[in-house]
């Protein structure tokens, strides 16, 4: 290997090692949810649970559930699960059949904000 290329490769490896060793704490992506994203369920769920890829800041992370008319239907008790900081929960009353939208906005512990929404259907 020529000296110039060897130097380039060594610098690259050193830089990759430094970067890879950094303690990453990144955007919180939605990993999965219950009810599942885009799913149809036969029984009205009593809560929505969202699992994220990163621990969340409880004070700045919220989820709400709205009906087809855009009206809030959750119990307004959105909170980060005390036993798992990656899980966001909100309670639901007995919901009628229909389409509901879950809207979330979370802040990971390194202050990155992510937001999103998805729907689920309740059928009888």
């Amino acid at each position, binding site marked *: 290997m*020529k000296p*110039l*290329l060897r130097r*380039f*490769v060594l610098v*690259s490896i050193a*830089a*990759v090692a430094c*970067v*890879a060793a*950094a303690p*990453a*704490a*990144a*955007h919180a*992506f*939605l990993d*999965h*949810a219950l009810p*599942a*994203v*885009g*799913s149809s369920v036969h029984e009205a769920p009593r809560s929505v649970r969202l699992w994220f*890829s*990163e621990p969340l*800041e409880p*004070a*700045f992370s919220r989820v709400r559930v709205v009906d087809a008319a855009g009206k809030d239907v959750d119990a307004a008790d959105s909170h980060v699960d005390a036993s798992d900081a990656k899980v966001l929960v909100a309670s639901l009353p007995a919901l009628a059949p229909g389409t509901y939208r879950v809207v979330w906005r979370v*802040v990971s512990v*390194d*202050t*990155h*904000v*992510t*937001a*999103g*929404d*998805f729907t689920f259907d309740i059928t009888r």
Partner: protein
Amino acid sequence: MKFTSISGAAFVALCIASGAVGAHGFAGKRFFPATLATEDPFVADELSLPTIFWQKSPASGDEPAARETEFAVDMSKRITENFGIGIGTTYKVVRPDDGDTERGFDNLEASVKYKFYQDDVHEAIVSAGIDWDIGGTGSRHVGAESFSTITPGVFFGKGFGDLPANVKFLRPLAITGQVGVGIPTRSSTTTIGDEGDAEVERHPHTLEWGLSIQYSLPYLQSFVEDVGLKAPFNRMIPVVEFAMSTALDRGASGTTGTVNPGIIWAGQAIQWAVEAVIPVNRRSGNSVGVLAQLHFFLDDLFPQTIGRPLIR
């Protein structure tokens, strides 16, 4: 300690309120990955290390066919939330079928970019920038030009998450693209041969244009329908890039470029990608190459130091 928790919450609130949480590749809930062959529209703190390219080039005139391998590094840094700079260099190894292997650095590349429009609801973004290929900074043995080329351009991205529910499986689609004009700082180069004959090579203005079409499996899983994809497929984004160049004047004409189908895997702080490089016509080459990249999101790796804008 109460003081600590209050301070932590206050810090988070301050960061959010100051907009310091802006991020690479996001427009609303859409995450656009960093593309390899075309410039993406985001201003970000990121490092591509390395980008590796391999392709066999055809014989042309007196030049024999050759196998080219490139190792590149590029870094982008936000100065403000919406304005950033970039710098990159490429080490090239050219192995002709007939002749000695040539090695050396190509010209340095510097760039500036400003994001002037973003619509989170419609997952749209537009930015403008200037790329500067700095003439004379590379080795002529590997084809580095002695003159500079300045390319002002516009970059855009659009996600299709706003499509109606009856075509919901098209919502993970997104496009990004670029249009620019390459302006060489010299119109021609005259070379005097061994027998005293002069050869003039003209350097035309070029239209540099490109497009990427992406289908985001993370978007499908998180916002449209959980179809049960597991790692590593749930973080994959199939992509096709089109990187094209059209000569505009000075006796030159025609378009060269490549179509690059590939896969991008985007994780929490890094992404990797591999693409095939398929020439669009004979002038662009006659064999399929390979492009691969390891990419780091510095704003996720170092959110409180080099991963945030210098001026907030």
